[in-house]
């Protein structure tokens, strides 16, 4: 059956002075509409590369990505990306950062009034209305990432790609943003691919966890379906046997079966 997003037999070689370096080898993955998928693995295993290929920033050497029956080979707003370091334009206010995205995606499709409402709506979704006229330098790291998420959501993507979105934040802020993300996900039911190296984050947020083996020639090691009921509550889950089972599955994969030889 045709799935929503098909990553089929993707391999990528990077040229080096000593000949091509195979970073990914034969990665195949299908994702349903509305599914939240995490990709987890040790750093340098190529999980960001997978995301960059889906995002169209990299071209696969072999294989390809098919989204809703169409091949993907260049970046586009239907696969909005939330970058790890927020990547807001420092000279634009929060509102203007979202506005730039909305204006280029919905040019000719929305009236100026509709655009304004849509921008405000998305900023409200991440609870940032109070600071929308501030410059990125004037708000905290967590708030910047909220705006980064608002900007990506405002593109109305078919797939939302998140590259370690909370990796640069402290643990408490990270927990807040995860809760916000779950809340938004309940409303919008987006299709999401999130790169992470945080086991708790992966189990808490995902429907499916993709565990990658170590590079070179990294590929998918195991796929874990997380069948925890939604809405999930951080507090209830901390003592939940099922949750802890999933958690230990991932930890065993990362630190036993595919432990990094050199840390």
């Amino acid at each position, binding site marked *: 059956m045709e799935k929503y997003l098909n990553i089929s037999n993707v391999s990528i070689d990077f040229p080096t002075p000593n000949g091509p370096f195979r970073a990914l080898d034969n990665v195949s993955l299908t994702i349903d509409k509305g599914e939240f998928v995490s990709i987890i693995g040790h750093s340098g295993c190529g999980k960001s590369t997978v995301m960059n290929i889906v*995002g*169209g*920033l990299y071209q696969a050497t072999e294989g390809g990505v098919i989204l809703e029956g169409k091949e993907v080979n*260049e*970046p*586009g*707003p239907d*696969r*909005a*990306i939330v*970058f790890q*370091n927020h*990547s807001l*334009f*420092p*000279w634009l206010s929060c509102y203007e950062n979202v506005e*730039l*995205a909305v204006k*280029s*995606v919905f040019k000719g499709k929305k009236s100026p009034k509709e655009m304004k409402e849509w921008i405000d709506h998305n900023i409200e979704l991440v609870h940032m209305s109070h600071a929308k006229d501030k*410059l990125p*330098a004037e708000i905290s790291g967590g708030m910047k990432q909220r705006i980064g998420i608002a900007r990506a959501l405002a*593109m109305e993507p078919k797939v939302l790609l998140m590259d370690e979105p909370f990796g640069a934040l402290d643990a408490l802020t990270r927990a807040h943003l995860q809760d916000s993300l779950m809340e938004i996900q309940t409303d919008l039911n987006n299709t999401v691919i999130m790169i992470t190296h945080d086991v708790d984050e992966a189990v808490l947020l995902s429907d499916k966890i993709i565990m990658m083996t170590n590079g070179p020639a990294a590929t998918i090691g195991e796929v874990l379906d997380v069948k925890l009921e939604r809405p999930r509550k951080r507090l209830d889950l901390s003592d939940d046997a099922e949750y802890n089972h999933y958690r230990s599955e991932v930890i065993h994969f990362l630190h036993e079966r595919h432990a990094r030889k050199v840390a």
Partner: protein
Amino acid sequence: MKDKIINFLELTGFTWFVPLVKLATGESPTQQLRDLAKMVGIPLLAIVIFLGLWHVGAAKVITSLGQVPGPVQVWEQAGNLVDEHYIEREKEKKFYERQDIRNAKKLEKNPDAKIKVRPYTGRETYFDQILTSLWTVFVGFVIASLVAIPVGIISGLSNTLYSALNPLIQVFKPISPLAWLPIVTMVVSAVYVSADPMFSKAFVTSAITVTLCSLWPTLINTAVGVSSIDRDLINVGRVLRLNYLTTVFKIVIPSSIPMIFTGLRISLGIGWMVLIAAEMLAQNPGLGKFVWDEFQNGSSNSLSRIMVAVLTIGILGFLLDRVMLTMQKFFSYDKNAVIR
């Protein structure tokens, strides 16, 4: 109102005056006086020491034009130059008055008479020369910027173009204005031929020499600024499928503004230095020609007058840099960056 003035002073870099404004509005006088002593007192003391050393040192050197002038003689000559300016202006006014009366009389006798209005051809005053210098450096600098910024942006975006231009930039960058000048003079004489030229050849030559020397810092800084843009910001633009021009105007230029202005400031500083040398050789009637003429003149006042020019050049150069700094702070998104 007060906050606005303070903001303006901080933007322009004249932080010296901030305590004065605060003092005038009656804000904690002791604190303001202490700030004032620190910010104004120390530089003032340094200036006084400098003037003292100059005074003592100058008296010990006797040249063929007499003793090297100290601060007092220089100050006198500065006054003389200002007086000469007013005298010359007065002459000019009287010349036009006489001419108007003469023409009016002519018309009274014969209403069809052809009257001639001749422009005044007295010599330039010191202030005319300052304005000529500023205008020349401005023209040369603007031409340089108009070339350097676009070329810098394009070569910053394209590695191929950058590696093509880089050797040329590196070779042309260290060339002295004195080396360019003969070539520029000859080329201008050959190419810029017109019966009724809008600008004098000396002006064109000086301005182009300024352009040739002030091109490089802006070009290099712009290219470096553009090529060091955060890759992720460019990737955001790719995800949004912005076209080349939108990317340049919405992402590339705003993020490299600080570097572009750093380049522009260096360029203007170099341009101003180069200009004086160019004016000496090209005989463009600005400060450079003033210095040269006084040197050739060799009167007992010449050295003092040259020193007035030297100080004027320094102060104007400082003010030009302040103008650029203010513009940099105004246009740059990062208002908190320390810019020196």
